[in-house]
């Protein structure tokens, strides 16, 4: 555990980079450096800027410097029976809270409890002019000024350097249980969607290799009652308690393909039927986040997703593929234009994380 404020040093580095128009790669723990196009710019190391600044369990808010590890955040929260409800994956022990917010990845609970952007309350950043700016705050309801904290969430560091972040936390459920039932993919898609409409304490639903897994969270009484109510629909309790963590952290065997084939993340609307793309599939987020291991052409994958109102991310692939196909799904022209303008307004010299998100900036 470290507690160190290096914001002044970071500010100087950004100032110099802006003055000399030197591109920077914002670097936390590096656990998610596989995501997004890599570049060889000088690293701006934020990892040392770390430590929990404040934590108020009764107000459900934690504020920490960006370099604080996700592990430290999780254990701090756990000591008070609380948790980050959006279950961010770390993809390694080095993962930082800054990277977590910048990448805005969320675990299996996302469709039920919300994603990273639903929990961000405020942040302090350095913009491309090396100005130290604070947006949002540490309170749950706050509509003063534009919501720049949400704008930073998922921007992959392209708009500024996150210095510290305030996040809403929730009580951790007393326990989770998992139900499992074998079925075909069509029934699984319908059931996963229907489950969320029953008012039962469902907090995850995934379809993996012919089995629908459903997670229930709450007290012993509530989860037992729910398991009883849902038995005929989604099966019996199973002991597979690490399943959700393995799914979140990509440590299931599915995520280690033999021939280092690319891994795609496909995000589609509720109830989207199985897509006609050759490959291996795993369904998370009640069928709305699908993992695909496939050699199908990027253009085909993208157009198939787009046709159903979804999008596809080249999650893990070779550098060559990433450059050719782009990592994130291309934006429609009017939105790309707004993205570029916002980028210019935050980072006029274009020094931060060039092309990490989109090839255009």
């Amino acid at each position, binding site marked *: 555990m470290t507690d160190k404020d290096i914001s002044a040093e970071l500010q100087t580095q950004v100032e110099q980079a802006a003055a000399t128009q030197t591109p920077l790669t914002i670097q936390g723990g590096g656990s998610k450096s596989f995501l997004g196009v890599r570049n060889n710019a000088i690293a701006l190391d934020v990892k040392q800027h770390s430590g929990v600044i404040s934590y*108020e*369990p*009764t*107000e*459900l*808010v934690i504020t920490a410097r960006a370099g604080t590890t996700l592990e430290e955040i999780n254990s701090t929260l756990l000591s008070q*029976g609380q948790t980050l409800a959006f279950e961010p994956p770390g993809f390694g022990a080095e993962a930082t809270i800054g990277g977590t917010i910048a990448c805005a990845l*969320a675990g299996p609970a*996302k*469709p039920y409890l*919300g*994603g990273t952007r639903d929990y961000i309350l405020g942040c302090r950043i350095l*913009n491309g002019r090396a*100005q*130290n*700016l*604070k947006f949002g*705050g*540490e*309170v*749950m*309801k*706050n*509509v*003063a*000024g*534009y*919501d*720049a904290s*949400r*704008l930073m*969430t*998922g921007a992959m560091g392209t708009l500024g350097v996150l210095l510290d972040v305030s996040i809403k936390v929730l*009580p951790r459920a007393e326990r989770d249980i998992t139900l499992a039932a074998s079925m075909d993919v069509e029934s699984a898609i319908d059931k996963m969607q229907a489950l*969320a*409409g029953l*008012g039962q*304490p469902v907090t995850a639903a995934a379809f993996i290799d012919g089995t629908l897994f459903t997670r229930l969270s709450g007290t012993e*009484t*509530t989860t037992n*009652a729910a398991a009883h109510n849902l038995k005929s629909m989604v099966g019996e309790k199973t002991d597979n308690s690490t399943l959700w963590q393995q799914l979140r952290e990509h440590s299931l065997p599915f995520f280690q393909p033999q021939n280092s084939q690319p891994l795609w993340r496909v*995000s589609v*609307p*509720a*109830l989207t039927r199985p897509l006609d793309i050759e490959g291996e599939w795993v369904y998370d*987020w009640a069928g*709305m*986040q699908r993992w695909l291991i496939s050699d199908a052409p990027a253009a085909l994958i993208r157009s198939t997703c787009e046709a159903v*109102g*979804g*999008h596809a991310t080249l999650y893990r692939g070779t550098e060559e593929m990433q450059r050719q196909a782009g990592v994130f*799904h291309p*934006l429609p022209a*009017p*939105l790309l234009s*707004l993205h570029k303008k*916002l980028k*210019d*307004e*935050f980072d006029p010299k274009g020094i931060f994380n060039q092309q990490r998100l989109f090839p255009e900036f």
Partner: protein
Amino acid sequence: MSQALFKDETPALDDDTRSTLITRFLSFMDDESVLRDDEDLYPYESDGLAVYRQKPPLVVLPETVDQVQRILKICNELNVPVVARGAGTGLSGGALPLKNGILLGMAKFNKIVSIDENARTAVVQPGVRNLAISEAASDYNLYYAPDPSSQIVCTIGGNVAENSGGVHCLKYGMTVHNVLQVTAVTIEGELITVGSMACDTQGFDLLGLLHGSEGMLAVTVEIVVKLLPKPDTTKLLMAAFDSVDTAGDTVAEIIADGIIPAGLEMMDKPAIVAAEAFAQCGYPTDAEALFLCELDGTEEEVQHQLQQVEALVRKNNATVVHIARDEQERMQLWKGRKSAFPAVGRLSPDYYCIDGTIPRRHLSRVLQQMNTWSDEYKLRIANVFHAGDGNLHPLILFDANVEGELERTEELGGKILELCVEVGGTITGEHGVGMEKINQMCVQFSSDEITQFHAIKNAFDPGALLNPGKAIPTLNRCAEYGALHVHHGELPHPDIERF
């Protein structure tokens, strides 16, 4: 009432431009949709903050997306500001008209386009009333969660613009947490769709950015909202205490105990007395503080939590503990809280509603300071409080017919907001900045932060034509205001010219 609080110092829209606009609008809109006579314009002179008034030179009421696009293109071409408006229930003057711009009324966009029972979503036009969505979804046992107290009249487009909350947002979130997708028109007349029908979106969170942007980035023309299944069971517990501190501490303990109530509302004595007199809902009028704690979920979950909450309030020596016996009594107890504003309104010719949020641990300090100021300013204050999330609504009672009282009220309101910032909170939890709190923005944000806000607007609206002058103050305004409010000898915004 006087216009003492608000002076629009921009020159009025000139007659030539006004005639050109009328001619051009009438080429694709019917006569009744282009309002230009005084008797038609006066109803639009203010929103829910009626102390600020400005008659708009022109009101247009489009009914198709194409018309909105054409209107915005014309205004962009002629450099005419546009203020979009829903039902006009906003409490911060966000829809206050401008002397030199048109008012774009979205009231005709009042259709629920579709409800998808299985995906649990509704596609709605921006002029649909908040409550109408839940009413329409009710057939499917679904509802739309955010419930601002004006939900009978306020529109979903306005809710997006303000990022409205309500009494249930501790558990269910604000508008931004309950909207999947927004289609909007930019000042250039371009149609953009932000967000997605999928569970997330590529790129920047523009959907989040549009929420609470107070009509300054784009004009919303269609919204997809999430619907939730109605909870199996809902229970309401009322607890009264002989001090506000104990009530506040009990709220903290409930949350520390791992419970997120669906609603957790607190009132102080003046508010309790007013609400009881108005609604006869069964509140103990001798209590110093009272809270309503609503729990919802499955039968087992609610029973379990209800026992926990009851044990906690008893441990903390609540003077009254009462669980609503049935649905009728639950609604009755809520009625008192939901009618707190009009109830307080009966105690005094006028009242002024404040909307700060504070970290709850500072509640006692903030209330004590307010009591001191109340004596000093000789203005009574009643407090209703979204206790779960720290959102305070002090209601200052005043009489606008007493000379200077309105101005004193505004000054007191400003001081309360600045106190909220001082303890680590914000000047607005859910009502928006609008025109009302524009000066306090200078207290909450630095010059660099305000400049960055203007830069965000510039990305969407380079000519600053969408609701200009609202929500984000100019640095000059901050300098003028800052000159009057020097804290600890530090001059705010020292880097800009003063005159």
